[in-house]
């Protein structure tokens, strides 16, 4: 249980450990894209943690990084093709960031630091905790950016029609992503130290 909770808040991969920044900033323009990305990352993280902790005793330590990368890229290819087939619109929005999950530091970091040293059940818990932490972080980004940049939540207009016509466009553009994550990180640090 400790491992599960840890990943969500105290060791949030994005806001505290600063891992996996690229997708967090790039595909958090709307809440839907952000959660779609989060689910893809959870899938790859679960699969790779599971397989790596299963094979951890049979992999020589000099060869472990290439083996991990092959395992991860297998799962990335699966999600890549599945998404292309069933969610073509989402796939188009996420673009190059779906194949780029393979170099997402969160996944390799968990494989190296956790799954290669712990049992299967603990590795699954760890993957879920870290994965949910990632979804929360990217979801928070998507929520703020979509709300202020488009006046909507998951495409439904909530801040009134006039705001939707003249939103804070800055928020959905690249600079807005940097600004929102800066404030989220500062808030997280304030909360951790208090």
């Amino acid at each position: 249980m400790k491992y599960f909770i840890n990943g969500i808040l105290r060791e949030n991969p994005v806001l505290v450990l600063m891992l996996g920044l690229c997708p967090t900033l790039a595909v958090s323009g709307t809440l839907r894209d952000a959660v779609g990305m989060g689910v893809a990352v959870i899938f790859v993280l679960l699969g790779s943690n599971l397989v790596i902790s299963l094979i951890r005793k049979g992999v020589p330590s000099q060869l472990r990084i290439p083996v991990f990368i092959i395992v991860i890229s297998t799962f990335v290819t699966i999600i890549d093709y599945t998404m292309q087939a069933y969610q073509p619109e989402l796939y188009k929005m996420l673009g190059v960031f779906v194949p780029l999950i393979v170099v997402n530091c969160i996944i390799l970091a968990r494989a190296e630091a956790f799954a290669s040293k712990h049992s299967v059940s603990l590795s699954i818990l760890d993957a879920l905790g870290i994965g949910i932490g990632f979804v929360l972080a990217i979801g928070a980004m998507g929520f703020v950016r979509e709300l202020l940049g488009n006046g909507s939540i998951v495409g439904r207009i909530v801040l009134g029609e006039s705001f939707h016509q003249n939103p804070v466009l800055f928020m959905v553009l690249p600079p807005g992503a940097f600004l929102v994550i800066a404030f989220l990180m500062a808030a997280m640090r304030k909360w951790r130290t208090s």
Partner: protein
Amino acid sequence: MKFFLIFLSAFLVNNIILIRFIGLCPYFGVSRRLSTALGMGMAVIFVMAVSSWISWIVYHWVLVPNGLVYLRTASFIVVIASLVQFLEMFLRKNFPHLYTALGIYLPLITTNCAILGVAFLNIDYGHSFIETTFFSIGTALGFTLVICLIASLRERLDLAPIPESFRGNPIAFITASLMALAFLGFVGLFGLSI
């Protein structure tokens, strides 16, 4: 002119870090000192050019004729990882000066998503071999420019009076946000768009 526009688009208008959000880990990780940022930039220019040629050749001459396109993600990461190892050995033997200058940045590059990202983008955009050259060199120069700019800014930021919660990374993100805003000003240059 076409090649010049591809170069300029990759270099400034669609800057890989500030607009595309690829390769953010080194952008925040090794940008505390100007000298280290410059070293990283040089290593990226070198590896990005070579790796995008090799991955273009692998994709168009090996994967496509044999119907193995689904192996794209796995094969590119293996090609890039082994290329970096090979380059390291080659440089150590033939260009020891360059090798010591690039130092630890060469192995770090294997997990730099900018390298893999450019290889994917070249395929997605359907670039020819020469276009690939201009695109990857432009991107790498853009990376170097931006990482050196933020390193110089962060050296000054160390001395500035910043609120406790924002010290370190959050203020770096806010700086990056302002830089991205400035780079948005390049949109429309020679009719180029994001």
